[in-house]
């Protein structure tokens, strides 16, 4: 579904990614784990077409990332961001936010699709004509997920989708993401620093450090604490002992 081979990215003279390679199968949930500056979000940006220049091969659904138009890409891949306060237009109603991708892509039946999506992400229909500031953080993140799913993309890129939320709200959003993936057969690429979230939501993970992949492994190894790289072990220990 997603194939990244020898991806290198530089900003000015600083190289932030060094020959990163990994594959994500259809329907799989894959995590990129690392600390700030490890380059994990940069990989998502490259896949979402937000970077001007990079070297290597990026394939999404067996086609090179840069091949089609931006519109084609938007139908394949959508992104959910960390901060639900920053990622929604403050002066557009939920209806505007959810309806816009449909309008751009000329998809009919907007009314029904918006209402269906509100139901799918567990938001009451009465929120349809509210503005973001009238919603809580968890509700906003539901809107952000709904917006990402409006075009029915097979791939979701999730950039720390729950780290700005309270723990009880985090549980709701994690459950929602898991349920949506099962229902719609979505492929997830999740960026996070939170190992327990990976354990709950993902099948495999790659551990990044300073722009390089230290190891790629099955989530079972994470659960049993058997990460092979020294850095992976260190992250595991910190996550368990604080």
């Amino acid at each position: 579904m997603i194939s990244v081979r020898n991806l290198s990215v530089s900003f000015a003279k600083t190289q932030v990614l060094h020959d990163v390679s990994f594959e994500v199968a259809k329907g799989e949930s894959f995590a990129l784990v690392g600390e700030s500056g490890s380059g994990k979000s940069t990989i998502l940006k490259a896949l979402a077409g937000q970077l001007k220049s990079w070297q290597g091969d990026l394939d999404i659904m067996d086609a090179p990332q840069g091949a089609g138009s931006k519109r084609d890409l938007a139908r394949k891949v959508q992104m959910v961001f960390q901060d639900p306060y920053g990622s929604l237009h403050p002066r557009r109603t939920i209806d505007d936010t959810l309806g816009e991708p449909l309008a751009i892509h000329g998809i009919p039946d907007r009314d029904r699709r918006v209402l269906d999506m509100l139901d799918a992400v567990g938001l009451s229909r009465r929120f349809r004509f509210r503005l973001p500031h009238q919603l809580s953080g968890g509700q906003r993140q539901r809107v952000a997920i709904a917006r990402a799913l409006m075009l029915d993309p097979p791939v979701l890129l999730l950039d720390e989708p729950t780290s700005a939320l309270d723990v009880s709200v985090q549980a709701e959003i994690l459950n929602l993401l898991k349920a949506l993936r099962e229902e719609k057969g979505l492929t997830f690429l999740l960026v996070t620093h939170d190992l327990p979230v990976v354990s709950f939501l993902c099948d495999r993970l790659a551990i990044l450090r300073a722009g390089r992949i230290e190891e790629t492994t099955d989530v079972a190894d994470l659960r049993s604490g058997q990460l092979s790289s020294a850095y992976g072990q260190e992250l595991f220990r910190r996550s368990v002992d604080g």
Partner: protein
Amino acid sequence: MSLLSVKNLRVTFPSDHGPVEVVRGLSFDLGRERLGIVGESGSGKSMTGRAIMGLIATPGQVTADVLTFDGVDLRDLPETALRKLRGARMSMILQDPKFSLNPVIRIGPQIEEAMAVHGALTKRQRRARMLDALTAVRIDDPARVARLYPHEVSGGMGQRVMIAMMVVMEPALMIADEPTSALDVSVRGQVLDILDDLVKRRGMGLMLISHDLNMVSRWCDRILVMFQGAIVEEISAGQLYKAQHPYTRGLVASLPRIDESRDRLPVLDRTAL
């Protein structure tokens, strides 16, 4: 005698629908220890910290039956007297160094400013103590860092600078409001170690306000769990999994674990509380 004594603390803000009480009758004592205050957004944990520091601005109102710090009644202390305490005897660390440091003053002079306001030290003494404070928070090259502007240092370094700024006055009480939430796990450990050292070596009292249940329960001597402006439960160190109150238990259950095997996470039922 305890360092800080609070009885029936209330913080109220006016609203269109009448006054709203955000802290409802909080009582606790703090000695020379690490006290954790946990709760979710809106539970009143930050407001508690601010109320103790006297940082609730009008129209907010603070009332308490007892609010004593080191024998001083804080309730009706005039602003000038409060200013002498704040920064010198009691200080506060906020979450994000990006917003708490002055962007146009170099780090060294910024730390010295607190001493200039409070102390009778000479310029040379202030500089020496500033460098000591930076060393104390494990900055390897204090003279170089002192010359930098806040935007030239990383988040973790910025937070250590914030702590150095507080430490330099050797306060008796430190209120740390989410001091590590903006930091990576590797830096988080270092910052906690520094705070720990201050409690153990200088006998400081520390109030650590956080939403991170696991971190607080591992690290503090005891924890107060806040919900809707009140303390619902007190837990001693490491006893988080023996919590009794349904709110605390709900929070603990809803956290994913590193060896997660549950298909769905239990969600807190707010209506049942």
